[in-house]
């Protein structure tokens, strides 16, 4: 039983078929959850007594920012799987995660920046979380650039894996040092989520949105992986069959 599971995950064809189904499920669930969560957060959650209505941005910003970091960690897991078990699927996952992760990082940066205007008066502040997010964006960009620069896909995969692993070890160090740097130069009142405990009517939609964006990311990553698999396995018989079927 254990070996069958291992072989299944090593087979691109098996994954391509399954992922198609998972992708659809994730997509629909994500849509439903985001609709409910966003409308709830925008329309039905009570206004914050400090920030008024502008805090409603957190229903997008917080899940997206969290996912931007989580997707990087997921890439690191793929890198380990690639090196230890030599599963090519892990490299495909890494490739897909880089693009989706970068998109989420950009979204987190812009949403955080726009939220800054009513809260602090300017569109950009060098606070710890925004600065860390910016550096995370550069890390993602480096990965995407490296992947596109190396022609051989196996080599590109391994090179990106090395970069991800070095990056993931550095990530907590970077975050810690940026927080330290920020505390040195700015008063503590610049914290983004320094709030008293939220009532349930506020954090329940946040949770719903978190789950929704997580499923959106899953949908995007699975869809992207399937495309990469098609391209990489284009010489094989099962791909020809799939193309002819459609």
């Amino acid at each position, binding site marked *: 039983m254990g070996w069958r599971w291992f072989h299944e995950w090593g087979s691109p064809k098996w994954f391509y078929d399954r992922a198609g189904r998972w992708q659809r499920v994730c997509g629909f669930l994500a849509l439903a959850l985001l609709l409910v969560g966003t409308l709830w957060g925008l329309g039905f959650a009570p206004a914050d007594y400090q920030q008024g209505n502008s805090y409603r941005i957190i229903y997008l910003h917080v899940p997206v920012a969290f996912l931007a970091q989580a997707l990087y960690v997921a890439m690191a897991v793929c890198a380990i799987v690639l090196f230890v078990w030599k599963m090519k699927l892990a490299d495909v996952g890494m490739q897909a995660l880089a693009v989706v992760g970068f998109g989420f990082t950009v979204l987190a940066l812009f949403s955080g920046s726009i939220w800054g205007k009513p809260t602090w008066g300017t569109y950009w502040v060098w606070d710890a979380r925004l600065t860390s997010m910016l550096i995370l964006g550069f890390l993602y960009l480096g990965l995407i650039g490296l992947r596109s620069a190396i022609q051989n896909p196996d080599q590109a995969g391994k090179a990106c894996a090395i970069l991800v692993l070095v990056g993931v070890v550095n990530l907590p160090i970077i975050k810690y040092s940026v927080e330290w740097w920020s505390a040195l130069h700015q008063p503590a009142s610049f914290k983004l989520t320094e709030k008293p405990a939220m009532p349930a009517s506020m954090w329940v939609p946040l949770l719903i949105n978190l789950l929704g964006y997580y499923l959106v990311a899953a949908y995007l990553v699975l869809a992207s992986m399937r495309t990469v698999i098609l391209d990489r396995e284009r010489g094989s018989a099962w791909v*020809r069959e799939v193309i002819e079927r459609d």
Partner: protein
Amino acid sequence: MIEFQFDSLFNFLRMAPHGIYIWPVYGLGLLVIGGLAIWIRYQHRQAIRKIRRIMNRESIHEPKA
């Protein structure tokens, strides 16, 4: 506990005074995520088209081989 926080749809859209910040953020979210989804779909179709072209090219050469 759960009730609509705004007394009219117009006020909901205004989100006074922060509507001008909130709605662009969510619009951007829709743009980025929707854009990614569309782009990935487009890549998928490009990949299929490319493979089909390769298959056609090979089948043309086959009778001559």
